[in-house]
């Protein structure tokens, strides 16, 4: 029952959490809107994601982790992606999907480990260890090529599993994504692409990325079904993504979803967005932020109250504190670890470099002397 005829993004709730269109709830809203457990856990995950982002930014400021890209304002997208995925599906992220990682069961200390400059942050993967979720992908849009490769592996292996690949509005300009769409269409692959259109690619505004009114329509080039969704409306996102993944698993082919959102924070902790965008634009965007909207709705539905909110916030802070502590207790790897996973079958000719690495370490250990 997805609305492909739609003009503009699919949206069920107003910024204030009111049901749009006023008709009888059952009529207006999709099933998932009545699923208390689902919405409450979505709300928890989104709240945890925001708390984690806040904490991570603070940790960067104090030098405890490195450059960090907050997902502030985009929690509904990453959490909806995580929740729509089945354990046995494959998640192919970019680098602003902290919420998805959390829902997929990755530990916060491991996310911090990655952003703290330690490869082991990508060593643990999702809850379902059998599943091969991909690690953070830094080279923009390259993950899209991997996603179609994994999807075609699933097809060849006759597994009823789907791939969900995320990317940004800027990434939608890069050939890797556009070629991947073409292959997904030509080979009819079980892959869903989710474009987090947060309006900015660092300092480059959406209108410079493309002359097209929507980014979803890039899929028209490959005749792939596509639609825009309000990226601040969890209910709309979950409905669309769950159905898109179901289609894919059933062999009905790929789909592209453009989630319209806004990057409420700087691009990363290394960025100063005030150089290139007006505070007014940001202030307006805050009115649409996704967490408040879902909170008001579950309040109205009687799924949530002040007390629950209080408990939850305390609980999140405890979890966070424990995660930070766990992260800080993880000692750095040995210097020679840089060789441990380079090749599975070790080339003897590189032994002397491992030795040289050890010597270099000892030589410099205590600052060293000239």
């Amino acid at each position, binding site marked *: 029952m997805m609305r492909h005829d739609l003009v503009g993004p699919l949206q069920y709730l107003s910024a204030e959490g009111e049901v749009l269109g006023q008709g009888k709830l059952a009529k207006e809203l999709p099933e998932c809107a009545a699923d208390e457990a689902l919405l409450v856990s979505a709300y928890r995950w989104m709240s945890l994601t925001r708390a984690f982002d806040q904490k991570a930014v603070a940790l960067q400021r104090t030098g405890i982790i490195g450059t960090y890209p907050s997902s502030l304002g985009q929690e509904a997208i990453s959490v909806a992606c995580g929740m729509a995925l089945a354990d046995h599906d494959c998640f192919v992220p970019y680098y602003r999907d902290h919420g998805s990682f959390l829902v997929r069961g990755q530990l916060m200390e491991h996310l911090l480990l990655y952003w703290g400059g330690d490869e082991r942050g990508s*060593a643990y*993967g999702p809850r379902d260890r059998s599943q091969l979720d991909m690690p953070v992908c830094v*080279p923009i849009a390259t993950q899209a*090529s991997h996603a*179609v490769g994994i999807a075609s592996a699933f097809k*060849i292996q006759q597994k009823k599993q789907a791939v969900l690949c995320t990317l940004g509005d800027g990434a939608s300009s890069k050939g*890797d994504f556009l070629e991947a769409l073409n292959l997904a269409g030509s080979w009819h692959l079980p892959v869903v692409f989710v474009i987090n259109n947060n309006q900015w690619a660092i300092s480059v505004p959406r209108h410079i990325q493309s002359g097209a009114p929507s980014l979803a329509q890039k899929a028209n080039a490959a005749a792939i079904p596509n639609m825009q969704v309000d990226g601040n409306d969890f209910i709309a996102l979950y409905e669309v993504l769950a159905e898109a993944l179901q289609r894919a698993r059933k062999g009905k082919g790929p789909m592209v979803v453009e989630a319209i959102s806004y990057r409420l924070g700087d691009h990363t902790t290394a960025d100063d967005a005030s150089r290139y965008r007006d505070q007014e634009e940001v202030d307006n965007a805050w009115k649409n932020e996704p967490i408040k909207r879902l909170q008001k709705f579950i309040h109205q539905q009687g799924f949530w109250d002040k007390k629950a909110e209080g408990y939850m916030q305390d609980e999140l802070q405890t979890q966070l504190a424990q995660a930070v502590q766990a992260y800080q207790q993880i000692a750095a790897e040995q210097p020679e670890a840089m060789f441990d996973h380079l090749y599975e079958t070790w*080339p003897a000719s590189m032994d002397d470099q491992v030795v040289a690495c050890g010597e270099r370490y000892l030589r410099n250990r205590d600052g060293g002397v000239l």
Partner: protein
Amino acid sequence: MKQDNELSKLNQSHNVTLVEAVNLALNRALLSDDTVVMLGEDIGKNGGVFRATDGLQKAFGFSRVMDTPLAETTIAGAAIGMAVAGLKPIAEIQFMGFIYATVEHMVCHAARMRNRTRGRLSCPMVLRAPFGGGIHAPEHHSESTEAMFAHIPGLRVVIPSSPARAYGLLLAAINNPDPVIFLEPKRLYRAQQYELIDDGKALPLDTCFTLREGHELTLISWGACIQECLVVSDALAAEVSIELIDVATVKPIDFATLASSIKKTGRCLIVHEAAKTCGIGAEIAAYVAEHLMPFCKAPVKRLTGFDTVMPYFRNEQHYMISQVDIADAVRKTLADSF
């Protein structure tokens, strides 16, 4: 596994060219391992523009031997995804001149997936491409840029120079749990025929092959130039005792074998078709400068392609390295002895 496959010529002996040996190895790999798949342009019905994949799609179907849209970036990137997902993809790039669009994926992902995830994920893929000049081909069809990939940590670069090594090294590359760039010297594709037993036996990677033993000069090469080196080694046998070594795996290089030979002969000539600057020859000569100078009875010599764009085929021969050039370089090296 289709054991009844007509293509199956298991354990039989064949008189094959290098390109037929590649075809045999691919067929063997597809037969013996269901996770092996192939993708590339024109590899299906057409069997590849050089027929390296002839008959394979017919035998194993489109789901094992996949014609792709014309998009090298995706050929490499999708292969990485397939490899991560438990397949052993063999991706074909039609000519090395068209391999450059794969560089971002090979450098940023294929070479790093295992290291990035500390072994949780890996990338057991092979990127095949015919390379080198001398076949009177159009612009961009004669590249030898193996050194670009050899510079990249995490990659292996393997180059056969005979049907037997094409067969054995390709099987080794396919079985290797990490990414391998496998470059096939197209000038040799149909140069000669050799007896070959399709026994599925892989040859070792990361190892040089000593093709001629000698004690006066170590002649080092790989790929198509090996054929000229063989002729010269034999033709000059009365004049000089040449030890001819086929590097085969040009990254990582088996320096142990090279070093022991150079220690013995005290002279070293490196021959490659690729441009000189920062080629594989530079790395080998640098190794000698660092570790073997006391053993050197003559300056190290590199006989290579020039640092210029390979001329179109009308003047291509002025760029290529001939037996005469190699013989001349051998004699010069002897003459220049300290």
